[in-house]
């Protein structure tokens, strides 16, 4: 029931690439409404669109909704998300082609209502703008990857500067933690004077291992008669286990008709 209810919220319209496209995709859109609106997706002016075809871009969508009214921004992403931009990356990941979702923000509130009333969308391509696809697009992307060494150097320097200042800030923060607080507590950090071990999985395993070893060293293994007897038994058990395993293997081979040599 829930699913059908939700579908009725969405409005479906065909989105053509050109005027003469015969088999367009259908996009589904509704007013963007979540509990906490962010600055870039203001309440009342934003529509949320799903099933945007892989080749569509911001400008194309602006074209498509141009009849409803002036548009202030379009944001395309792979998955609907409310988060703001995440950590800056040095090598930006190549965007993979896939169906997208879009947040389209109108300049005026009235345009949104008009958009929800639309019975037809304009094609993505207008006279003044054509979406680049295929070989043209690939050539553009290829050329964009090639940088002048100078530019690359500048990028690296800029990034490292930012990184260095950030780490310096972090260090400062840690130093600060190291100071006694009002109640006399000291937080132990990596860089501090107080020696501590790193809290990693590896170190933890090592400690456990060491303990086990110590325990083992203290044990006598081949001392009492019952121990010797048990070790003999263990040998037989091992042989038996192997025998059983082999029997199982045979059964398996037998099942897969492997014993008919000819």
């Amino acid at each position: 029931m829930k699913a059908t209810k939700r579908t009725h919220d969405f409005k479906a319209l065909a989105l053509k690439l050109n005027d003469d496209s015969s088999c367009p995709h259908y996009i589904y859109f509704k007013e963007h409404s979540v509990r906490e609106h962010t600055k870039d997706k203001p309440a009342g002016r934003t529509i949320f669109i799903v099933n945007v075809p892989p080749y569509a871009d911001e400008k194309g969508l602006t074209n498509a909704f141009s009849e409803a009214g002036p548009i202030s921004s379009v944001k395309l992403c792979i998955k609907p998300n409310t988060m703001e931009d995440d950590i800056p990356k040095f090598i930006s990941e190549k965007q993979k082609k896939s169906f997208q979702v879009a947040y389209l923000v109108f300049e005026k509130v009235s345009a949104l209502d008009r958009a929800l009333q639309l019975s037809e969308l304009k094609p993505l391509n207008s006279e003044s703008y054509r979406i680049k696809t295929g070989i043209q697009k690939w050539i553009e992307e290829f050329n964009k990857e090639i940088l002048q060494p100078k530019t690359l150097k500048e990028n690296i320097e800029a990034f490292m500067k930012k990184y260095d200042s950030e780490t310096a800030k972090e260090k400062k923060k840690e130093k600060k933690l190291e100071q006694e607080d009002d109640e006399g507590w000291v937080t132990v950090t990596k860089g501090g004077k107080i020696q501590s071990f790193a809290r990693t999985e590896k170190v933890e395993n090592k400690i456990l291992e060491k303990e086990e070893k110590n325990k083992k060293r203290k044990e006598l293994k081949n001392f009492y008669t019952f121990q010797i007897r048990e070790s003999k038994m263990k040998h037989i058990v091992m042989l038996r286990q192997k025998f059983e395993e082999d029997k199982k293997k045979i059964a398996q081979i037998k099942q897969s008709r492997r014993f008919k040599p000819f």
Partner: protein
Amino acid sequence: MVKRKNVSISEDDGESGLINENGKVIFEDKEKKKRIKTKSLYRQPTVNELNRLQETETLFNSNLFRLQVEEILQEVKVKEKVEKRFLQWFTDFKNHLDSIPTDDTEYDLTEHTLTKKIKVKLPISEELKKTKCVFKFHKFETVDIVGSYALGCAINSKLVVDLQITVPSQTYTKNDSINYRYHKKRAAYLAYIASYLSKSDIIVDLNYSFINGCETKPILILKPAGKLQNHLSVRINLVCDTDTFKLHRFSPKRNNLRQSWLFSTTESEETDSPTPYYNSSILYDVTALNNEKLLRDTLLNSENLKQAVVLLKIWLRQRNIPISGQIVNNIVVYYVQTKRVNNIMSSYQIVRNIWIALKTSEWDKKGISLCKAADATPSLEEFHQNFPIVFIDSTGYYNICWQICKGTYYALKRECALAVEMLDNVKINSFIPLFMTPVKMLMKFDHILRFKNMELLKTSVLDKVSKDDKLNYGLDRLMLVTDTVYSLLAKGLGDRVHLILQMVEADFTWPVKKVLSAAKTDSCYEEKLAFGLILNKDNALNPVEKGPPANLPEALEFRAFWGDKSELRRFQDGSITETCVWEGEATAERRGITKQIINYLMDLKYGVKGSDLFHVMDQLDSVLVRKQYAGESSAHCEEACLDVLRAFDELRRDLRQLTELPLDISAVYGTSSVFSYSRPVPPVARPAPRQPYRRAGACLLKQASRRDGLPSLPHYTPVSRAVIELGHSGKWPGDIEAFRCLKAAFHLQISDRLTEQYSLITHAYPSHVDVLKNGLVFRLAIAHPKEITLLKREIENGVVKHKDSEESARLQRDTQLMPRLRGALHGLHQKYPAFGPTACLFKRWLSSHLLSPPHFPSVTAELMAATVFLHPQPFTPPTQPTIGLFRVLRLLAATDWTSEVFVLDFNDDLTREQITELEQAARADPRGRSVCIVTAQEREVGLACEPGPPPPALRRAQALAASALAYLENSLLNEFNDNLLPMFVPSLSEYDVQIVLHPSLVPEWAERVCAPPRRRPPTPHVGDELIPVVDFHPVLTYLDDLRSAYGDFAVFFHDLYGGEVIAVLWKPDVDEYEDFQALNANALIPETVDGETRYKVNKEAIIEDFRILGQGLVKSVNVL
């Protein structure tokens, strides 16, 4: 403590169970308990069990081996039901035969009186017409069951029961041994019996045939009527009483076939040469009773010996070595006599001991004998002078191996050596390759020689052989021809081959009412002869055949043998010798030297032209040639790869000597497949681009279009990837992005230094640096284990944990596993030079059936090819790429990939425990491997290899491989078809949509399997100026887009090597209606069904999208 309690209780149980056999009622509830306890691993062992457990370790290879032996023996055993039925039938049959009437008439066999009376033809060839003799039928005494069936070591499949009728001695006269008179009378006797049997209703399918293809010794083959005929057939052989002839008449030096008879000349020469071969054909019958008795005495009551015989027979039959069960029996008897084996040994030990004994035997020089009284019988030397292989029976006159060629014997010895090797190899389960795998001709040999015209071959060879030989073999001409050609090949090929084995197909059966010659023409009977060669990879490629020095007398002989090909040559060490030089510059050409030699010798010696010969060896070599460079030496894949490797070695040296870097470069490893010779279309240096747009060292793409409106793209240039390892430093940042940034700085610096120090053309990118060397582009990237650790790092409850992610696994594979694996594969190619081309062929084949990566990862393909070389059992590693491909296809098709694990141990340094560990780890790989081939390298860096093709792709590949093998077998072994390229033609009809691309924009389009080679020589590469546009592959880019955008709805297939079609297959659930969800609304179209709005995938729009996304590249989209 609990365990100990258990033990004591079960002990009690055992005793009470023994004593109270009749008191079961009391112990009923205890019985239940006992059953549970017997399952426990800690129960007290019984003496029997202990014995068995210990026995398997000492008497058998392993538990597994013992169990398998038991299973297989059970499987091939003749079923009791069949035995019972046969006994019943045999009693009837015997009674029927006993009532055969005696006939006192004497028939002159040169006339037709006998055949007219009995209404059955004589099973004898026309040539025996001139033999005059008079025949009278004397009734025999008994019919006996002999051979394997009587001894109880018969094999269930294709079971033949041997019956033997002893012809009374008064049928023959003293002189009947001469000039085939014996054979003719024997045939008449057989015909007489046949005529009587033909009236019986307990027999169906009464036919004549020959023993072991020996044309003068006919036998009767028949099937019992009723259900029994599905299980077995019966063979009736005639032998004669031991007192029929004096044995010394047939000693190897005696003549029993006169020249005057054979060549129909009138003058009788005094000195007729000895006819040991002809003699043996009679001796076989004369000694049969004696020998049968010996076999019975030794084997009949020795269960273990009999099991060993059965195992040996299975082993031989799988290998198709023409050694009869009778000889196997005799071999076992011989080794029992010499006390090498006895019945107390387990069957495994017997078989193993016999293999070891045979491995070191020398029956061609030091024959063996079952005869104990050595005084009056001919000496061993006498036999050696007249037979190639000597194994004398208990009478001391008959050579059991009279029909065994040298090739067969050497094959037997070789197989024994291989078998022992397999048994000693603890790393494999040797049982399967030893007993379960059929060793097919196409798989076993590196080179097979077939004859297109047998009649021509026979006449031309018979023209040239000496009269003595002809006399010796008498009417068995095929045998003579085989032996003669064999010795020619053996002499001509010398140490280039490990083995030459002749394969004769001359079994013929025909109805008793037909004359032999008529039957032959009616059924289009043709004798088939082929020779299989296993090449010695060290010598086979040597283009120079060095003979003796010119001043020695041997030089004359050498010259006489090789004819005009032999010439005097002076070598660098100053020696002047007779020498033959064969053509061949590139390795690929030199693989054909054996073919050159055979063609030359057959023409020189017998005038048989190369066009009448058919070689199975290099049929697919054309696929390994770069079509655009046809005629050049770099056209061959291997040579082109070698060029890349050379350039890379230079670059590597340069890199290590770079100065002024903050960290030294400690190592450089290649990771691309070109570095292990396994890239099917390797890069070749090309001239610099004309009028390029350039940015620093790299070349930009132009947005230009050609006259026909299509965009113009530069030639596709692939890159060869390598990783750089830097010296140790603790200063790498602990943040992944900063780490990458620093890497980029290093790339930039390496690029600068390379340009400054060695003036190489370079261009740095954030993720790698491109270097142009000798016209080839190398893509270097810095590899550091810390990057992987950083990618794996996750913080959980304040504890840093490392978890594999997809990205970290990929990085680990690319920077840690692949460099090592590539090195190992390169080493494998150095050891087995056929590896690289084999891998190339296999990848080409997969790709041509649209199973290119990601459907079939290229590493998986390479590892499969490597498996053929590292786990060749039961074969030996191939030396011809074409044969290598057959083997890989067989491996792919015949392996049950869900259960089998292969461990590739390139350097042979893993212990058995390590191997088992690896096997288990691979099985338990959380990513789920579809193809379990693990390498020793993965033990070092963790299981990082690609998990293999998805199961549907694997199944399809297996089905395709099976049909390809069937096709190959038919065209190479039945027909004489040299063009095997149809096996590379895919079937496109099963796909839903075809996206056809513009051929001129498809990289490597000129290298398709079906493309004609270009004759115009390519412009040569001059100097390094600018890095061309590299790694711009529009089709792969397009495929990436398609797969990432529409991977949920369809699967895309493409031939990586110049395929102009992308085949699309919808996923099976694509037509189903789906629920609409905001997160899962991709490609859905609303549809009104029964007044309700429902959603389904908009296939039409997706097809339209194919066109939009591939604008400029796509020619048309066809919906099938």
